[in-house]
């Protein structure tokens, strides 16, 4: 059944046991993103310090894909350098745009490779991307607030 492709075990596990959820303070910037077609919403906060993502906290309502995506995002970026986090964002966005033809790099994306199946469902790509868009938005503003430099190649 095709469903297995979409709802891989990793995704369902993150959905049922989301990592790092809940909004935490202090934080450098907060972003609120909405998916207008389905009503999914996320509020996401980022704290940066010393060039690293010190915390990424979030409150999300939405489908399993968007919730799992937030959880996977948290695991990837928490403690990562700003540069790494932006690279992860780029890799994930590329995976989602690939319609299932992009071979994900497990080194980089870790659990997020499970989303390769999502890329085959155009209607669900937006769900998976929602937390990542909010993250990039909040991250760039947090970096700005912290007066950190954004690595040029990804800004």
């Amino acid at each position, binding site marked *: 059944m095709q469903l297995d492709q979409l*709802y891989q075990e990793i995704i369902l596990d993150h959905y049922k046991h989301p990592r790092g959820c809940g909004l935490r303070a202090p934080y450098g910037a907060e972003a609120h993103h909405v998916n207008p077609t*389905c009503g*999914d919403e996320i509020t996401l906060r980022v704290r940066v310090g010393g060039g690293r993502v010190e915390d990424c906290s979030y409150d999300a*309502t939405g*489908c399993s894909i968007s919730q799992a995506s937030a959880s996977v995002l948290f695991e990837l970026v928490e403690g990562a350098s700003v540069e790494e986090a932006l690279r992860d964002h780029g890799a994930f966005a590329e995976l989602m745009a690939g319609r299932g033809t992009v071979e994900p790099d497990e080194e980089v994306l870790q659990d997020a490779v499970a989303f390769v199946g999502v890329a085959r469902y155009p209607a669900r790509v937006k769900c998976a991307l929602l937390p990542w868009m909010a993250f990039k938005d909040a991250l760039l503003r947090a970096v700005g607030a912290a007066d950190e430099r954004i690595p040029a190649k990804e800004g």
Partner: protein
Amino acid sequence: MTRTIPAPTLDVDRVRADFPILARLVNGHPLAYLDSAATSQKPRPVLDAVREYYERHNANVARSVHTLGTEATEAYEGARAKVAGFIGAGSADEVVFTKNSTESINLVAHAFSSMAADPRFRLGPGDEIVVSEMEHHSNLVPWQLLCQRTGAKLRWFGITEAGRLDLTDLDRLVTERTKLVALVHYSNILGTINPTATVVARARQVGALTLLDASQSVPHLPVDVGVLGADFLAFTGHKMCAPTGIGGLWARADLLEAMPPFLGGGSMIETVLMTGSTYAPPPARFEAGTPPVAKAVGLGAAVDYLRGIGMAAVAEHEKRLTAYALDALATVPEIRIIGPTDLVDRGATISFAFAGVHPHDVGQVLDAQGVQVRVGHHCARPTCARFRVPATTRASCYLYTTTDEIDALVRALAVVRKVFA
């Protein structure tokens, strides 16, 4: 909506044979198309009429003495007459062809302004427009934009917990300040059929105009503008077996006469000088540019098709399906219906929440079983907000829907339970 005469029954197998798409497989399962509230499927006679138009008669309308042009014009105006007859309009000239309900409603909204010559359309601070919390965005956003342009105030009816229009405040909401009440006739999210007569009577009492968003009622119920008593009726072809790209606005002749043009361009003029123009009488005044001729022909054919089956029979068929579906869904413990749970004044469009699973996931799992339902806010976000859900799963039926398809839905819901257990 009088259904006193026993309706002729509808032979659903014969109906289904007219709809080529229904034979399709989806993800290896027979298609169970339960998304007719979003758009209906098209029967062969409609597709044939459009094709025949293009292969035999295609030309531009209204400005031609040649044979093809004359045939095209007659096909276009003939379709207008059919549509007028279908909704009980007094004259074909009371029907304006638009591209969809949304344009129909915007067309009316743009007739109102602070500078309108006719006082019924003059709108400014102190004036009010009344809608409801169960409007489709297409019958809400145009009024929000109009209020922004003019300084008028938007007010609205609430919804009861049972999914009914809350008329408790009718006399306090619809007052001397009200210029227009714009109300959905049949809610595309709750399935509720509203008591428009009560609202229209009150509006008339205070001298307000009334618009009914009949996008869901014209396809599914016998509709007669004479009986409804409203001033404007908006409807859309693609939900009633016709092609996409064609809709209609019915309005009383004297109102159309009083309305200024909306879109400017070819065919809506009387005389054009560089220094200024005068405009054609309705309905041409509101049909600028080349109209969707072939789509109008398709809508005419759809009306013929529906009349052939009988709207009373369609409504009766859907009433039976509603009863069947409500009973069937009651067997699924996770399900909470959002909207009326009885058969009184409700149609075969049923929204629900599935405990613990987001509608997106419900829809995805159903799709894997071939069951096509809509998930989301159904262009009625305020209604979702009212019921404290981000979205719903909605199954909606039409004349070709079978109880087997509802059974398929219920079976597929069991899979949802399994995947997200």
